[in-house]
């Protein structure tokens, strides 16, 4: 099915129509629409945002989640096999990423951290591009404009300001698209994230602050960053916020759609805290057993984002062997494509290091490149000499 369906749905009609005057909501209780057991529970405010979501679409979200978990597993395997230098797993955060990203329109623009590879998948990234950075073949895997998603940001929180500035541009253009900023619980402590909220609130910019509270910033528990819930941070900036079950794909989608509609209609920024959990290590270089309890992991395993959707579909008799097979096949195909893209990626050429530092020639750097190419040539290696030619 077409994921774009989910970015439109019946929401415009359904939502409150005066966004500018929409009341601020403090984080309060977690918004949940599907329980871990797979029961669809109703919610007075959020049901309306997903009332158009069919079982077929739910199955499609399920498929997405399975696929990105598979991407994650495959990439982790590639790292273990020495094909990638590093990988930041997203396992556990599938619902947060899929529920939010599938609510976006193509002309919305995403600014994320390094962990949102599931979001990139939804944006339609070429699978080889996902692993380019982690293989060490590039500093960024894709052309941001090709999928309207900036490349991963490693400086914690910096991208929230980019999203806010981009949103100012949208506003200036009179467009109704939205900028989406993904960041983690740890990031909320950085000055940049707070300044982004100042700017977004001041200019009522169409930006969504989507915080995946996965409970950990490397080894630091979220309680070190804040002893009150993160969604409340936004309230202090005059930004409406909501705290949503980040392992519930439907709830995440509802909250995101609400925020998107508010932004599209001049209602300004929103903050969504998606409460989820990082099931894996921070990156493949990390050893989480040094700092966290196995019990915690078990608790969260019981809240798995895929299991509950599957249970719900089963309850509704929308589950089938055929679906399961189809999803598995899709995941396999995606993993296979990514793996072969990864393994067959051509190595960059030495003089590529000088490319794109500037958009027009810079005399100092040109001389440096010239000297280095002479240096390479001094080894008399014809292969190297050839690659030099190519690079200039």
């Amino acid at each position: 099915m077409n994921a774009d369906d989910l970015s439109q749905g019946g929401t415009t009609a359904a939502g409150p129509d005066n966004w500018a005057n929409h009341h601020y909501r403090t984080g309060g209780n977690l918004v949940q629409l599907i329980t871990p057991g797979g029961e669809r529970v109703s919610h007075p405010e959020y049901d309306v945002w997903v009332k158009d979501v069919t079982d077929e679409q739910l199955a499609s979200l399920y498929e997405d989640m399975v696929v990105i978990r598979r991407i994650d597993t495959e990439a982790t395997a590639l790292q273990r096999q020495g094909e990638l230098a590093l990988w930041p797993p997203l396992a556990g955060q599938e619902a947060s990423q899929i529920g939010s990203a599938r609510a976006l329109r193509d002309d919305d623009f995403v600014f994320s951290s390094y962990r949102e590879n599931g979001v990139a998948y939804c944006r339609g990234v070429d699978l080889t591009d996902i692993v380019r950075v982690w293989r060490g073949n590039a500093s960024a895997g894709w052309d941001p404009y090709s999928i309207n998603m900036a490349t991963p940001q490693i400086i914690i929180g910096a991208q929230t300001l980019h999203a806010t500035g981009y949103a100012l541009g949208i506003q200036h253009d009179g467009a109704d698209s939205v900028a989406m900023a993904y960041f983690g619980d740890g990031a909320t402590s950085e000055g940049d994230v707070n300044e982004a909220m100042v700017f977004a609130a001041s200019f009522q910019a169409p930006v969504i602050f989507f915080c995946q509270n996965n409970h950990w910033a490397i080894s630091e528990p979220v309680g070190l960053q804040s002893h009150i819930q993160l969604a409340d941070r936004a309230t202090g900036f005059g930004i409406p916020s909501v705290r949503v079950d980040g392992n519930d794909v439907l709830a995440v989608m509802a909250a995101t759609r609400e925020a998107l509609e508010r932004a599209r209609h001049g209602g300004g920024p929103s903050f969504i805290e998606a409460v989820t959990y990082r099931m894996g290590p921070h990156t493949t270089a990390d050893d989480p057993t040094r700092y966290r309890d196995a019990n915690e992991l078990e608790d969260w395993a019981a809240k798995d984002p895929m299991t509950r959707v599957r249970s719900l579909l089963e309850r509704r008799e929308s589950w089938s062997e055929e679906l399961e097979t189809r999803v598995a096949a899709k995941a396999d195909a995606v993993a296979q494509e990514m793996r072969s893209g990864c393994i067959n990626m051509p190595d960059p050429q030495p003089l590529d290091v000088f490319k794109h530092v500037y958009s027009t020639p810079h005399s100092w750097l040109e001389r440096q490149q010239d000297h280095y190419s002479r240096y390479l040539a001094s080894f008399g290696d014809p292969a190297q000499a050839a690659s030099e030619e190519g690079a200039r």
Partner: protein
Amino acid sequence: MTQMTFARAINSGLRKSLENDPKVILMGEDIGTLGGVFRITDGLQKDFGKHRVIDTPLAESGIMGTAVGLAYRGYRPVVEIQFDGFVYPAFDQIVCQVAKLHYRTQGAVKMPITIRIPFGGGIGSPEHHSESPEAYFTHTSGLRVVSVSNPQDAYIMIQQAIASNDPVVYFEPKRRYHDKGEVDESVDPASALSMEKASVVTEGTDVTLVSYGPLVKTARDAALAAADDGVSVEVIDLRSLSPVDFSTVEASVRKTGRLVVTHEAGQFGGIGGEIAASITERCFYHLEAAPVRVTGFDIPYPYSKLEMHHLPDLDRILDGVDRALGRPNSLSGLEG
């Protein structure tokens, strides 16, 4: 040709850029209603509206980071940093984002951001208001850095900076804001001398004196004074600090055999050292003496009662010229 102050010339250049390109947006603290603490943006918000000349919240990283986002969206933000000493909260966004995004994205994302920084001392201000932080930026690859020394260049180069698809840090010598000069507003920036080129502002044969920004005037005065003394000083206004136009400097030094560089910034790791080292590399055998640096001291910018001691002035520059020429000077007798 019109007589105008340095400040007015920048204002006029900004106005031209705003007129010519709807993607140009000015951002900063107090640049709107007030027209900036130095009035450089005077009248621009009135004429171009609050959406193109934006008073931002008081947060430099916020300004720079949102400018990055605007550039992502195809805009050309021109950011005013109120004083040199207030650029550091934005340093992370400048070094890690503004400077690197073009490289990071293999050219897909352009960062045509101009960062205007009034810099340098001599205005009797308290701490943080008189610094010369240019070396932090010239050591940052991905940035272009220029500094202007006269109203005509100020007028042209601000437009060139804004037109550049690379980020440009544009250093304005604040103590010269009120100096007047002839400005030809009919000159097309695209056909004017590129902002990357240095210019020989006084010709001479005995020693090359390199400077930029506020000290170019002092350097020219020093050349005049030296001429009285029978010494012919060639003064070069670098204009661009990244890249430095080494060809022009090198050609001069090959002629004079002697080099003096002067700037207000501290010496250790300043532009002066880079120029001395690079010129020594390029024309070692043409040098008659070691390059000389006449710079601010390596101290926090001092309180205003003593700033004239920190800042290179005509006498200190002449002393440096004497050193380069092996004439009696303040360090005569010291080994070297």
